[in-house]
């Protein structure tokens, strides 16, 4: 053994593990050097409502929150949260399988079972963990996961954490999916993973055909309905319900951090053995459960979403109006028709995307700037998500802001 301590070692033998981030650090610095506001460090100083906040001292319309149904300030939801804080305290300090299951955790799982009309519901601390946990646990060594290439990071990470063979196919391509399913060795377990709404472009999946093909080939099906809960489908259960195939879905993954208006994730299922997940799913077991106030707000919100027909209708009206207006102004959008409450405005490049994002913020509008690797095909997007609480007047104001900013930056 040598007797040199690490600090005595010559400098050239030390490797800075952070050097792998150098290209990204440079890209970020180059962008900031152009003088634009950093699009990834915005602070909401005060939140006034589901659709407005104070950012940099200015009242700003929020058009990038995924707060589709505007439940964050619902008086019943807030009252339930306050009551739970008083009755159960600030946190559980424990795993669901130890001291972390309170009455509220059971109550929110009951609300989910009722909402989806399914036998089992399991709540995770985030939507990310729901995908991570379920996917990595149910598909094991020798099994095959067949998934859409545009799947959310949490799905990919769930695949990476598990031991199954991972086989992606081209986005929404039924034939590409079928070919891969048919090539899987006989006897291997198969899991097909799809999303109802793909959040980057706001497009929906042809679930009816894809699930039929998956079932014909003996696969179990998991559908992530994070971006459809509450407003797509006759009961707001999502795209699978809308296309009449929810009964064919083995596992629905969802989140509380979008339409429900708080934080948390879940899986609902009719699988008769589903409850064993609570003992074998590590991202469920080895983390603290959601705070009592969070599950109380979620349960109240979910039950209100069962009867939110008017809000749903207004959300769709907003989505259609803005989609039509932006198309009319000459912006290039992610979908030809509005398919969800997400409208993705395609930017020519990251630099002009960041300039446009900043120009909109100056106008008093917040949208998401999305860039690779989160986006498909290396695109830079200004992603807008509408809320049922946006008024028709706000949508008109938003359109005006896009027109002025788009002309100033030279995009339209």
């Amino acid at each position, binding site marked *: 053994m040598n007797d040199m301590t690490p600090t005595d070692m010559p400098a050239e033998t030390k490797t800075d593990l952070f050097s792998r981030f150098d290209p990204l650090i440079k890209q970020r610095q180059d962008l900031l050097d152009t003088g634009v506001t950093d699009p990834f460090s915005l602070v909401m100083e005060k939140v006034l409502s589901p659709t407005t906040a104070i950012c940099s001292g200015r009242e700003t319309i929020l058009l990038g929150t995924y707060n589709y149904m505007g439940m964050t300030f619902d008086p019943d939801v807030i009252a339930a949260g306050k009551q739970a804080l008083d009755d159960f305290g600030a946190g559980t300090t424990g795993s669901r399988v130890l001291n972390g299951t309170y009455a509220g955790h059971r109550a929110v799982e009951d609300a989910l079972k009722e909402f989806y009309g399914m036998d089992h519901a399991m709540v995770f601390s985030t939507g990310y963990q729901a995908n991570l946990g379920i996917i990595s646990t149910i598909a094991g060594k020798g099994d095959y996961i067949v998934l859409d290439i545009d799947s959310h990071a949490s799905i990919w990470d769930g695949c990476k954490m598990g031991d199954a*063979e991972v086989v992606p*196919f*081209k986005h929404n391509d039924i034939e590409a999916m079928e070919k891969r399913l048919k*090539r899987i060795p006989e006897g291997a377990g198969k899991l097909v993973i799809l999303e109802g709404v793909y959040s980057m472009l706001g497009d929906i999946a042809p679930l009816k055909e894809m699930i039929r093909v998956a079932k014909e080939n003996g696969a179990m099906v998991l559908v992530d309905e994070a971006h459809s809960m509450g407003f797509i489908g006759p009961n707001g259960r999502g795209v699978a319900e809308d296309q009449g195939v929810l009964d064919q879905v083995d596992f629905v993954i969802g989140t509380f951090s979008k339409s429900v208006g708080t934080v948390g994730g879940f899986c609902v299922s009719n699988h008769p053995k589903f409850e064993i997940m609570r003992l074998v799913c590590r991202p469920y077991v080895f983390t603290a459960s959601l705070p009592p106030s969070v599950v109380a707000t979620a349960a109240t919100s979910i039950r209100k979403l069962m009867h939110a027909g008017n809000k749903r209708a207004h959300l769709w009206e907003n989505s259609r109006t803005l989609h039509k207006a932006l198309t009319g102004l000459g912006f290039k959008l992610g979908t030809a028709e509005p398919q969800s409450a997400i409208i993705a405005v395609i930017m020519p490049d990251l630099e002009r995307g960041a300039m446009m994002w900043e120009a909109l913020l100056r106008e008093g509008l917040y949208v998401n700037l999305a860039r690779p690797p989160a986006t498909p095909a*290396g695109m830079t997007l200004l992603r807008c998500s509408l809320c049922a609480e946006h008024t028709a007047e706000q949508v008109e104001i938003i359109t005006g802001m896009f027109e002025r900013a788009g002309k100033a930056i030279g995009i339209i």
Partner: protein
Amino acid sequence: MDRAATAARIAEVITPFNKNAIGISEATSFSGDLEWDSLTVMDFVAAIEDEFDIIISMNQQAEIETYGQLIDAVTTLQG
């Protein structure tokens, strides 16, 4: 199909993807020499899968760094 025949067919499949007409040998690295982005990799893998009616899972792709390793893997996967 033996390794030589497999190599010949892969050479045909790769041509349209090798847009900069880089000279390819068995030691050519996909990430280092060809500098393909992730979309090109996906399309190329799909083309190889369709040509040979096989699956190359992400797990297997992670082990394939060079052109020679791809030929080996496809030869093996055809069984």
